[in-house]
């Protein structure tokens, strides 16, 4: 379990009187629990604190106040940091800035080498990770020859090779075109069927996280609310306040409701299509 307790975080914090100095915290008094196996979406505007929190979970940044613990290991404990990092892996926004190796195989092997994976098993593990994400490339293929979507799949393979129990996708689809984005999300769901992990998905695209267990809305470094997608989608104003737009089919469902047509609150894209086909 991930336990975030009353956490405040300032970038470049060095003094105790940050608030007095007029600096705004990236996160302010955030408390959260994330259970094993959960699929959680962090939602909010740019600068609302979603990515800052993801960095705290992996121990890249440490909280200025409060604690973040992963399976009982506090991230501020230097000795526990390798365990925390191994358990929580992140796929970042720009795939090019997270790839160290020249070839697909080398890039996946980089992380394995860091954690001291037995040398004789590295090649097998690399092949396993490539196969898991369905990357259509052999391990000798240069990273520069991959498309944007393939590069992000490689980034996913590289972190999954480390067998994380918590996976954070920090706007991992934001640099992809719509087709590549859909493919990446489909790959992710396929991977989750084969390999179980807690998923923390940071995005601005609500349609990618409609099947999440829980949405957590951020605003100005604070958690505004959390709840199931079905519950939160009803509060359109709150979503708008958090800089979020409903998926097109939810907007259409809302317009139909306003016109007096009975459309259930919790409806997905396919159900709405069926409803429209029946009524016509």
């Amino acid at each position: 379990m991930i336990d975030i307790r009353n956490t405040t975080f300032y970038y470049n914090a060095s003094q105790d009187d940050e608030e007095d100095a007029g600096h705004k915290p990236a996160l302010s008094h955030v408390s959260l629990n994330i259970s094993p196996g959960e699929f959680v979406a962090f939602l909010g505007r740019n600068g609302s604190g979603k990515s800052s929190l993801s960095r705290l979970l992996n121990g890249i940044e440490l909280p200025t106040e409060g604690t973040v613990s992963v399976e009982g290991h506090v991230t501020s404990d230097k000795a526990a940091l390798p365990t925390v990092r191994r358990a929580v892996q992140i796929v970042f926004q720009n795939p090019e800035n997270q790839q160290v190796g020249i070839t697909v195989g080398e890039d996946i092997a980089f992380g394995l080498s860091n954690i001291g994976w037995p040398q004789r098993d590295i090649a097998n593990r690399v092949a396993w990770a490539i196969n898991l994400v369905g990357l259509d490339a052999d391990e000798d293929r240069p990273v520069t020859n991959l498309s944007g979507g393939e590069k992000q799949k490689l980034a996913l393979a590289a972190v999954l090779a480390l067998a994380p129990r918590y996976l954070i996708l920090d706007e991992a689809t934001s640099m992809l075109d719509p087709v590549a984005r859909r493919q990446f999300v489909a790959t992710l769901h396929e991977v989750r069927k084969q390999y179980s992990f807690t998923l923390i998905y940071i995005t601005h695209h609500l349609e990618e996280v409609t099947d999440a267990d829980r949405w957590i809305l951020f605003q100005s470094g604070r958690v505004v609310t959390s709840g199931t997608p079905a519950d939160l989608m009803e509060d359109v104003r709150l979503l708008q306040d958090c800089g979020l737009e409903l998926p097109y089919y939810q907007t259409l469902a809302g317009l139909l409701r306003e016109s007096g047509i009975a459309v259930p609150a919790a409806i997905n894209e396919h159900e709405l299509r069926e409803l429209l086909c029946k009524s016509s």
Partner: protein
Amino acid sequence: MAGTSFLLYQKRDSWLERWDPRMKIVAVLLFGAALLLTHSLGLKTAQLLLLIVLWGMAKLSWRVLAFTLLSLSIFFASTMIYQSVLTAVPGEDMITWGWISFSSQGAVRGIMMCEQIAGIVLLLALLVRTTSPIVLAEGLEMLLKPLKKWRLPVHEAVMMFSIALRFLPILIEEFDKIRKAQLARGGGFHRKGVSTRFRGVLPMLMPLFVMSIIRAKDLAVAMESRCYQGDEGRTPIRMYRLRANDYAVFSFSIVNLAAIFVW
């Protein structure tokens, strides 16, 4: 794009790629020393020809080879002028052509110097184009391992070197994008006098510098999040074993170096 392809390693399954990285580095050092120390035009020419043969065996592009040598033409021209015209020693055979006099011995010195420059550049190009940066870094680290006893940050230095190699082509591409963007806005360094061209470089270098810093920062975060903590507890990606092939390369490099004392 020729500049980018010159720097980028791509797997071609050549004989040179199968050399052990340690032996490859040692062979490059020995061959480089032989190139610098040889005073025989014949031997230098033979060494250069051998490098060109190796280029072919490495399945590297002949266009890239031509581009590499052409990009050195300004060095070749200035070296030839300096050696044969400007530093002609009194008493040497002087050949007069129109109003120019040049020394034939100086011309030979110039050719040897040009072969030396071309040889060193080709040697390094062969090394980086037939060895993946990670493999090169691992080889270099294994060779420099004894220095760790004096607490020298060998691993960190080698990792920086390999990442610099990995990102060089990306930076070249980024520079090209910035250059085109500046040209589209009427800037750039391709027009007018020298001072204007010189001033035009700065608006291109600044964004490149800023981008490099951002990339470096992002990469450092990504490496750290993938459990990188220096060489502590790392396993090498590949198992390196010296084979008969590698010993043959080493022996040849020694013979090549010894040959300069015979000629």
